[in-house]
């Protein structure tokens, strides 16, 4: 009787969610990496189904979204661009040929530049995880150019991951690893039943998303405390309140300073090894024709030192009420049109790259070691 009731409850809930709150079924094939942050599960192959798209994902043996493996040494005359970012760079809701990395490579090659774009992006990454992936793994592939994505969620992601902290204004390493719920996910992924449920159940997706949201909120709260942001009820918070200083504003300032320091650390490391470093701003969608960028919140010291691709104006110019630049029923990533705009803006900034200029006119020889 109890089992029957349980089965009925699950089936009813699945039906309820499908009818009243349809979910985009987007399983995450994420695991832990040797360098202490999350990574894509090597050789995984899975699908995402949303009301707007059905997308196939293939991850190569190195954990990169790619249809081939890469050798550590690039071919002579080829410029290598390494992308580090979150789901936008990874290409969530986009077929491989429409991902930012794939399109950028196509456009650069079309422009006579022998370029090869390696996509190290992982959904949910913040700047701290991007830097760690570069430092411990990405640099081995000898990129000429390193590009980080920047998104408004990075402010919170960098606090949450707690890989770095600010101590008297100086950035210092706080933890060696950030692997949220990866152990649980790894254990579950061994079971075919779990993979089936994760790939097909809207109820599971619904519960997982709610749970993730709560965990993220709790982690941000805990990290705020760890960063020394006064919490409500603290004497510091009371003093801040009496000084007409909003507690959230204090937290906000801390987040900005932390993200800026991580970006500057990335800039120092990448440029000191003779590589070029760029940041691509990913604006948030407010409505179909309105977008917002948070990169302007970063201090001038960051924006003046790091070349930034700013696609906000181009997106706004291209926006029309009848044109989707971002998907609206899934997780809100770029449509192929939106990605094209981002790629064009990035290509425009990369035109001034000295490293790319050296590869202009070279025949593009892929350094892929095997095709999959």
């Amino acid at each position: 009787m109890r089992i029957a009731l349980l089965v009925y409850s699950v089936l009813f809930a699945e039906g309820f969610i499908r009818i009243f709150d349809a979910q985009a079924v987007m399983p995450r094939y994420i695991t832990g990496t040797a360098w202490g942050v999350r990574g894509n599960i090597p050789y995984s192959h899975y699908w995402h189904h949303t009301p707007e798209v059905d997308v196939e994902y293939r991850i190569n043996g190195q954990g990169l979204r790619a249809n081939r493996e890469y050798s550590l040494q690039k071919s002579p005359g080829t410029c290598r661009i390494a992308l580090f970012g979150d789901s936008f760079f990874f290409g969530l809701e986009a077929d491989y040929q429409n991902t930012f990395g794939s399109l950028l490579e196509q456009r650069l090659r079309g422009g006579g530049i022998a370029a090869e774009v390696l996509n190290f992006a992982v959904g949910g990454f913040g700047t701290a995880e991007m830097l760690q992936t570069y430092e411990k793994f990405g640099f081995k592939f000898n990129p000429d150019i390193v590009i980080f994505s920047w998104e408004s969620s990075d402010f919170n992601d960098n606090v949450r991951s707690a890989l770095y902290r600010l101590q008297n204004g100086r950035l210092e390493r706080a933890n060696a690893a950030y692997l949220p719920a990866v152990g649980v996910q790894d254990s579950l992924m061994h079971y075919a039943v779990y993979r089936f449920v994760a790939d097909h159940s809207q109820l599971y997706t619904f519960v997982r998303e709610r749970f993730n949201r709560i965990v993220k909120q709790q982690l941000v709260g805990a990290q705020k405390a760890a960063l020394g942001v006064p919490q409500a009820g603290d004497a510091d918070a009371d003093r801040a309140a009496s000084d007409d200083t909003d507690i959230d504003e204090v937290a906000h300032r801390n987040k900005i300073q932390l993200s800026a320091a991580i970006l500057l650390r990335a800039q120092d490391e990448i440029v000191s090894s003779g590589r070029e470093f760029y940041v691509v701003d990913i604006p948030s969608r407010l409505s179909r024709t309105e977008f917002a960028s948070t990169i302007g919140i970063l201090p001038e010291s960051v924006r003046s030192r790091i070349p930034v691709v700013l696609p906000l104006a181009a997106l706004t110019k291209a926006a029309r009420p009848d044109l989707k630049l971002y998907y609206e029923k899934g997780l809100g990533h770029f449509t192929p049109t939106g990605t094209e705009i981002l790629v064009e803006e990035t290509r425009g900034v990369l035109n001034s790259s000295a490293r790319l200029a050296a590869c202009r006119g070279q025949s593009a020889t892929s350094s892929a070691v095997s095709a999959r």
Partner: protein
Amino acid sequence: MLFNSAVFALFFAAFFPLYMLCRRRVMARNLLLIVASYLFYGWWDPRFLILVAISTSVDYLAALGAAGKPVPGKDLLKSALFLVMVTIGSLASARRDWWLAAPVAGGMLVAALVIVAVKRAPERVRRKYWLLLSLTTNLGILAFFKYFNFFVGSATALLNALGLHAQAPSLSILLPVGLSFYTFQAISRTVDSYKLRYEPQYSIINYAAFHAFFPQLVAGPIERAGHLMPQFETVRPFDRRLFTSGTLLFAWGLYQKIVIADNVAPIANAVFNSPANQTAGATLAGVLAFALQIYCDFCGYSNMARGLARCLGFDVMINFNQPYFARTPSEFWQRWHISLSRWLRDYLYIPLGGNRGGTLRMYRNLMITMLLGGLWHGASWTFVAWGAFHGSIQVIYRALRIDSAIEASRFLTLRGFAIQAASWAVTMCLVCVGWILFRSRTFGDAVTVLRNLFATTGYTTAAFSTLAALAAPLVVVEIYQRASGRLEFMTTGPFLMRYTVALSLLLTLIAFSAPGGQEFIYFDF
């Protein structure tokens, strides 16, 4: 601590096992309830606990004295000790204000002097003094914390209007949460004791647990001692059926609050925060949204309070009985915030003379009651106007004998149905006009909202679709409640149906709750 918060969930999860351990021992259970209730209330601001303790200490003694019972020194000591302990506890908290010790000590001294002074007076006089002590304390606290700035500001404005240049001393006073609720509850117990309708018992522990009972402390229902107090003097029943029905009632209240009220709030806020920029369609949607919001917010809280109390084995009175089915304004008040309506009837309207003494006196009494009822809701002239509006329409309905005509019409005949449907529609329009006064920040805003409604622009389906989608399940439930004659719709019927409804409720709560726990509107009153 909000019912719709994670903190409360943790609080209750920790409290409930302890409650189950000591529920069979009245003293231990009530002590636990006091500690839990003070923790619950002190979560907002521990300084407010002193006010609850003052009201508790004074009314414990006042009810005994007002009932003509002897007030032994032992109880005086207990009462003083309780107040001192709470004051020390409050002053030990992070948000302490040392100056609060002075009025507490001063108040105790004054109370002691009054007690000594009336000790040898005849019983009739002594009872009256005890009643006066309770009224002065509770209404004094209410007047100072809630109305001081309002009255001083209004008096200053009046003097300035008369050409006398006055400057108002404005104090920065925090309004303690739920002050109007627990002071009214305390007054009703002392008045009932004075009128010999209720016999107070000698136990400050029992009374303090009743006075601060956390499910209904901050927003009612405003309970009567005759109904709730005896429950604190006995072991309460507990079984799975009672707990299940309490949980379902709490869940339904939570649904009303976080799925309906909090989701329609932005529609109402958009209109009432900047009424000048709104189309007629948006304004109408905003007014309807507020009507839905305030009902679901307050009814939701009351259901949660009743559900929680039931889980603990206590029965708390019904506070809302489908007010939006009312066909006349007076019927609306018999169904809306029932505990306050009855309080105003029993402790204001009837003492003023009620229906006795002729028609004009009755109208006067009705107007005074509604005006003060409006003022109870908040220190603002818009609330007074709202009360006056409701008083006026009730007077008009009575003068034209509309109530009795509607009552006499038969629902099952075509004519009767038409009359009742039309009277319901008119009443709902009047109630909504009242809500405009209630929600508007100024009279100017209220006029703007009313003026907007008479335009013809902006009537789009988009403006009403969210509202309709959120209201639809509530309407279905209320029609079922009305047809079945049972307000608790989830505890009857076949098991699978009840189970499915409960499951749907749970899924809806998870899927459609508004982001961010919002405070209850009535906490401000």
